[in-house]
């Protein structure tokens, strides 16, 4: 009787082990499933409350560097504005007023991780501010990630510092483009792949976003070339030093592509 009970106990332990491991693997594969539970809304609200306050403490200690960064960005934008104003004045007689392709929504980072293989950010903008899943997040110095879940006041962003994330990038000058992915080792290094062998690449060349998606606008400077090497004899793999320091991120912009719906409709029709 005792041995039968022992056998039954072992079998149920094995079954429980398999069941728990299967559930865990399913959760890993279906990353978004937990976010869909109603109770997660309350959990995330409580967490966001804590993260908002702790991020303010962190911001207080970094405010000087952040201020300098914003001043530099402001200066760059002013210079661009002057150039655009001059160009617009010249075109005014012939130009047709069109809606801009992108709208930028400012946001603050309240939580950010950089030390995992799949990093993320939490931003203080949500559904009420018009944020939707699939929107890109950028700064003046790089692509940051893609909005993956949205609550009323916050959104969850899959960071570009994730080994399963990529951004379509192009080289200044040649315009050769390919997917750029994080190396997973240094928070400031990425690899630009699939660049044809005949394209000349020099250290220091700038890499920009290509704009070949509805996620990131074109021509955002992403980084500079460190070195290149031929991979599998058919293309170049370029090591890129990212311009944006993900460890000190505070202010970002969420990108709304105003043509997204139209483009998605077009893709649907083409299928």
């Amino acid at each position: 009787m005792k041995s039968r009970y022992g056998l039954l106990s072992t079998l149920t332990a094995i079954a429980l082990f398999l069941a728990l491991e299967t559930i865990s693997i399913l959760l890993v594969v279906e990353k978004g499933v937990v976010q869909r539970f109603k109770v997660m809304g309350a959990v995330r609200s409580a967490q966001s409350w804590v993260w908002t306050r702790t991020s303010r403490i962190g911001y207080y200690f970094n405010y000087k560097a952040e201020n300098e960064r914003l001043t530099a960005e402001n200066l760059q934008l002013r210079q661009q504005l002057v150039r655009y104003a001059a160009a617009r004045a010249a075109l005014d007689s012939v130009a047709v007023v069109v809606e801009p392709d992108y709208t930028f929504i400012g946001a603050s980072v309240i939580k950010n991780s950089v030390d995992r293989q799949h990093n993320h950010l939490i931003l203080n903008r949500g559904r009420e501010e018009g944020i939707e899943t699939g929107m890109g997040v950028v700064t003046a110095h790089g692509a940051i990630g893609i909005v993956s879940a949205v609550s009323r006041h916050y959104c969850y962003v899959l960071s570009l510092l994730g080994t399963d994330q990529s951004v379509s990038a192009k080289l200044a000058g040649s315009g050769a483009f390919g997917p750029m992915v994080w190396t997973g080792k240094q928070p400031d290094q990425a690899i630009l792949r699939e660049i044809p062998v005949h394209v000349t690449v020099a250290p220091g060349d700038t890499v920009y976003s290509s704009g070949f998606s509805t996620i990131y606008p074109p021509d955002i400077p992403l980084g500079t070339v460190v070195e290149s090497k031929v991979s599998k004899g058919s293309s170049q793999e370029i090591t890129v030093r990212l311009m944006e320091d993900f460890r000190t991120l505070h202010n970002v912009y969420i990108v709304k592509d105003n043509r997204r719906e139209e483009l998605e409709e077009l893709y649907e029709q083409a299928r």
Partner: protein
Amino acid sequence: MNKPGNILFFILVFLLQLVISDYLNLGPWVCLTLVPFLILHIPLSRNPHWVMLAAFGIGLGLDILSAGVPGMNAFAAVLTAAPRKFFYRTLVNADRQDKTEILLLKDVGFLKYARFLIVLVAIYLAAFILLDCVSVQPAGFIAIRFAASTLASTALSLLLAIPLQNRY
């Protein structure tokens, strides 16, 4: 250790793990975990079913509260909890089975405690790091990350175990 003391200890270590996950940036090379330390301290009198469920709860709780990829810590925690009794018998002492409510360093000695801890930490980190890195990182990176993380996590757990044994 009495029951309220047990619960308080688990809550405090879990909160410390949350702070480590959320605010301590050690870079992609080191993953610091206290989950195996928590699993080691689940009372020895508990049956394996209970231990696995508790480990699953700790892991999933950590996944959700630190906003990581849900399931990763849960998977590693259950894999660590399942053979806990076997390793306890093999590495610590079969005779001590069920004699202590919670395993303390002073009861079993540093060497036995440390080797039991390092095995649990290694199982946990092997599962976690493989799940995190497999097919995207080279074997060399995975091996270095595993070794550095095992050393760092074991050292931190031992540091916590010393004041714990003096307290109880």
